């Protein structure tokens, strides 16, 4: 297995690429999550629900835009470097989170909200104690999609000089070293699988057992 030999022999350099990749993805996911939550909550408040409904349609379609197009467009404004990649990933990664936050919050039954108000919750308490817990499953699902998407898309960010694991693959491509290409791919895939498994664990803990439908 020449890919593993490559990884073992070049570990310090590979490790640096891995940490670049992680911090790029980490920063982008954080921005996507916070802005996706804030926008999602905002556009599902009374009076803005129509906007939320429209948003579900738009974000649904927006997922068809190729990631490279977003990166190229941001590159035109911010040039070479990790900053371009983080901005592009942040924007691209908002889409699944926003879509899931809005659709899950819109799905909370009106009677449930009325029950919450009827027992004397303030609007903020209704959001924190009823709406978000009921939407948690779907919100974490959106987060998982974004993380997986960002980990693989960050590979492409190598073309704008953002570094990361994409560098190993692209260098391998230019010098025709299949072992490097496979090694880079294995790391990206492994990272995606691990973080998704980690988030699945998080999901199980933030979603109430009362919402898991077991007969």
């Amino acid at each position, binding site marked *: 297995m020449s890919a593993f030999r490559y990884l073992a022999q070049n570990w310090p350099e590979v490790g640096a690429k891995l940490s670049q990749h992680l911090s790029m993805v980490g920063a982008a996911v954080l921005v996507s999550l916070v802005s996706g939550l804030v926008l999602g909550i905002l556009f599902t408040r009374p009076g803005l629900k129509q906007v939320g409904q429209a948003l579900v349609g738009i974000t649904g379609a927006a997922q068809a835009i190729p990631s490279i197009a977003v990166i190229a467009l941001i590159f035109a404004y911010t040039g070479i470097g990790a900053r371009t990649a983080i901005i592009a990933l942040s924007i691209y990664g908002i889409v699944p989170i926003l879509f899931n936050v809005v659709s899950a919050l819109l799905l909370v*039954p009106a*009677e*449930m909200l*009325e*029950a*919450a*108000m*009827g*027992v*004397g*919750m*303030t609007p903020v*308490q209704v959001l924190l*104690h*009823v709406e978000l*817990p*009921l939407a948690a499953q779907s919100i974490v699902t959106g987060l998982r999609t974004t993380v997986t998407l960002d980990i693989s898309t960050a590979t492409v960010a190598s073309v704008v000089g953002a570094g990361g694991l994409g560098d190993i693959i692209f260098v391998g491509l230019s010098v025709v070293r299949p072992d490097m290409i496979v090694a880079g791919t294995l790391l990206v895939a492994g990272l995606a699988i691990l973080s998704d498994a980690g988030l699945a664990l998080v999901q199980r803990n933030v979603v*109430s*057992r*009362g*919402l898991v*439908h077991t007969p």
Partner: protein
Amino acid sequence: MPVIELREVTKRYGDKTAVDRLTLTIPDHAVTILLGPSGCGKTTTLKMINRLIEPTSGDIRIDGRSIAAMEPIALRRSIGYVIQETGLFPHYTVEGNIGVVPRLLGWDRKRIRARAEELLELVNLKAVEYLDRYPNELSGGERQRVGVARALAADPGILLMDEPFGAIDPINRRSLQDFFLGLQSDLHRTVVFVTHDIGEAVKLGDNIAIMRDGHLVQMDATHELLEHPADAFVTELLGATRSAEQLLLSRAARYVDTAFVVMSTEQMRRGGGSSGNAPLIVLRDGDTIKGYVEQGQLVTCDDPDEAICAFETVSGNGTLLEVVRTLLESGRKRAIVVDPDGGVLGTLSVPMIVRIMEGGLQ
């Protein structure tokens, strides 16, 4: 405890009037039913009492204080609110659901836990078994009991109930209604109860307010309403249940079988039983009723004591319905109806009551 007064309350949605100049006084310590066909404004009226809906005009007062001047959040926390199944929060356990209002009021965990245990006991659910369950692990009837427990958590004087048993099958609904009546006879809350089920209204209501098209048609004590419907609409709404329910809600004393004689056990043993011509002998030694004996049976028994039948005593002020329920639950054939001083008024059996109803409904 609070009286709720509605004065000239109107709610308009655009040019549609949901509630039209409704004036109604809901007495304290009693169950007042808001009854009417769907769209008559009964639920809108209920929701105006806890300000989930704000009236377009008019005034609602609780204990003389206008609720418009109260803080809506505090008002709602002081009123118990029970709605159909969806009212329980699915992501909270039973304890979490019962503790919702106490948590909002800032009670500590220990006190909430103790209150939840106490309330589960009150609604006949074992605390150890239910505290940690989620609503999707409960039956419909259990969910509704927890819903009532939740509404009672902070000990509110007023309970608003919006078709609470509407989604429950008829058999469980009946047992929930009995449970609710039992609870209310201990707690004496001021209850406003919305339903479109006439049987439920007559069974649970001390008073019934009948609404149509946002107007109040009639508000009266239940028996008054049954006996004197204000107009054709009320008569039609009450329909066939009217006469049947009316009969069953009549006082037992009015219908007792008086063909009986009273004697002591001693007198009967001495052969007094065969001397009278009444078909039934009620045995009483001093103040204690011992049982009754049917003349026919006395003849066939060697030992007169074997002919003494077990019985239930019911108050003459009770309703025929209570007599039927008592007899069906105990499995006894006859009830001895007594007046408040312990005097025997007569006896009643289920077949007799059925005959009375057949006669009355013709």
